[in-house]
């Protein structure tokens, strides 16, 4: 089970995801509401995995992903995405995202993806 940093600009989504991840026995070490905060928290907390929302103010998820990857090439980042964002997610994958989960989140799928990315 891993230490996870949740990045999303709404508390609603963070709470939702936190509860799903808790139910899977994961440890939520931190939350961030935008890309800048995500990078700072990543460097501070060194989580095993980051769930990264794509559309956020200040620094979006792709830029944050790139910044985190630049700081730590082995960082494991899962993108939180929604139908219609295929192009953005592909860009994220090309920038080093290891997985993706689709809103609305289905707990089993989220946990499966997190488990797979953590064990890879």
């Amino acid at each position: 089970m891993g230490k996870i940093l949740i990045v999303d600009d709404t508390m609603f989504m963070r709470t939702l995801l936190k509860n799903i991840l808790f139910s899977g026995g994961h440890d939520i070490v931190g939350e961030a509401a935008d890309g800048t905060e995500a990078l700072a928290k990543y460097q501070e907390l060194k989580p095993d995995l980051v769930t990264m929302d794509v559309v956020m103010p200040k620094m979006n998820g792709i830029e944050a992903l790139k910044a985190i990857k630049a700081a730590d090439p082995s960082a494991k980042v899962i993108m939180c995405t929604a139908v219609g964002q295929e192009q953005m997610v592909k860009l994220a994958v090309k920038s080093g995202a290891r997985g993706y989960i689709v809103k609305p989140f289905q707990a089993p799928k989220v946990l499966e993806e997190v488990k797979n990315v953590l064990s890879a």
Partner: protein
Amino acid sequence: MFDEEVYRKLFVEESRENHENIVNNLLALESGEDQQTAIDEIFRSAHTLKGMSASMGFDAMEHLCHSMEDIFSLIRNGQQEVNASLTDLLLTCTDTIEGMLDAIEAGGTPSDAQSANLVQELRAFIEDSPDEQEVPGEEVPVKPAEESDGRPAYTLSIAVDPSCTMKDVRAMLLLQNLEELGTILSTTPSRELVEDGKFDGSFEVLIESEAGEDALRTVASGTEISLLGLSPLSSTTAGAKTPTPGPTPVCQGDSPVEPRAELPSPQVQRPVKSEKSREIKNIRVDIQRLDRMMNLVEDLVINRGRLEQIANKHGIKEFDEALNMVGRSVSDLQNLMMGIRMMPLERIFNRLPRVVRDVANHDGKEVEFVIEGGETELDRSMMDGLSDPLLHIIRNAVNHGIETPDVREAGGKPPKGLLRLTARRDKDNVIIEIEDDGAGINPEKLRKKAVERDLMTPEAAATATKEELVNLLFEPGFSTAETITDISGRGVGLDVVKKTIESLKGTIKVESEMGRGTKFELVLPPTMAIIDVMMVQINGMRCAIPISNVVEVAQTRPEAVHRIGNSEAILLRDQILPMHRLEDMFGQAQKSDTLVVLQNNGKKCCIVVDTVDGQQEVVVKPLSRLAGNCRGISGITIPGDGDVVPVLDVNTMV
């Protein structure tokens, strides 16, 4: 999957923020301000709303937000123009979303009935716009495959779960993960097609790798992916099979950690706007909790008063000192608490530009709406009450005040009318002004109407001053507009506005210059909960009078009292003031010659009291619903000794 009620509150709160963000940026978009920022912000908020509503299972809202997001995706890519009809449609959508949020907050689930038409209309816009272009930066350069270098090769047959959303991304992730283990020589169908999702559930990968079968097997059976088959090939066969001629893109795998990370990605290289985005640095506290805290602070204030009285009786020095310290802390706590309850007026001002726009569009008028001092703070308990009166005055100003562009030009004014809403703190009050440069109010019209409506006798009307005439606007049933429009509405007039403002312990004043414009001035106390009062005794009973209503305390002689009809008046320094004995409230008192002169809204009167006890800061509590509406009493207060004391409502006396 989860208890939806737990999330409902959070959902509504954050959705409202995003909803407001959309509305404000739509208006900013129309006014031609920083377009790109506005478009990005709307896209982001619509997207966030979509994601949240989908998670809550509010499908109707999700569909609507999804369509809005799609439109803004097109606008962002320059494939759709923003025009007035689209803005109208989008604003209607935001209204619907607001309605849905109201329904959700009340515990309901919005139905598609509210939004199906809107979704269709939005779809029509989307279908009318040119086909979506390829997103720049997505093109994968075709690179020739490397010559086989004799490593073992395998054919993997892979299936993507039919329930997978974005199977193209899933396939891409898999191929990328496989590339970390070796070199992908080819895929069937081609990699380009696979990564576009153009395969029917399964595809094959020919890979050269030294990682071994097990490693490949692990990677090839990830989330939503299953490995149908894995068969090793001899290295010569692998070499013969590659490269596939034609446009099949086969990528080299010499940078396994960050494959193709260096590709240009113009989508994300837009400059980051840092200051404009909102940043959440505050915590949320349930308003009811704040109210409970406020009640506790009020109890503390009351009990401090009690302690002070006890201390006075016994005169223990040490006790006094301790009490002083407690008193100071309580005062600080009280001030802090009042501060926390304050909210910037922006919270209600922000809704008004939309109203101005709608009314102006409806009437074919051009209006520049300026808001100043939105940061001025007011107790949150007053916010709700203030919203409707403001809305009414603003609508009136556009609807009746500002003229159409041709009329304005004929009168030598710029075609665009100016409507200014300002708020400021002035000593103990918050002053809100709504000023337009429109037609103003015609006093002659008022004069005529006053007689027609039986509000004045023809004689009185003929001699009435402009001020008196303008004040008639606040009389029930007095409306000078020739026709009742669907904008300004029917029934609710300025009299209701005035009543509402007075119920907030505020006053409203209007000034108007024909041809130059009209100005409404609202003066409000920043908070209603704690006020300074003068404590008086009437017929042996205590009663509190808000100090803001007290002009002076005077002594009189019986000869100065005159009877005028059924009422009494007094001549005080050349001024005739109506005099009230409040006998119906407090019973018949012994003769007293102490008067308290009261004023409200520029009008004065006086009441007879036995004695004046002094001035005190008290907490005013509203009367319970059980007590009903008591004319003359605006609330009650409990001073230190635990007595229940009525607070006079001076509005009803002058």
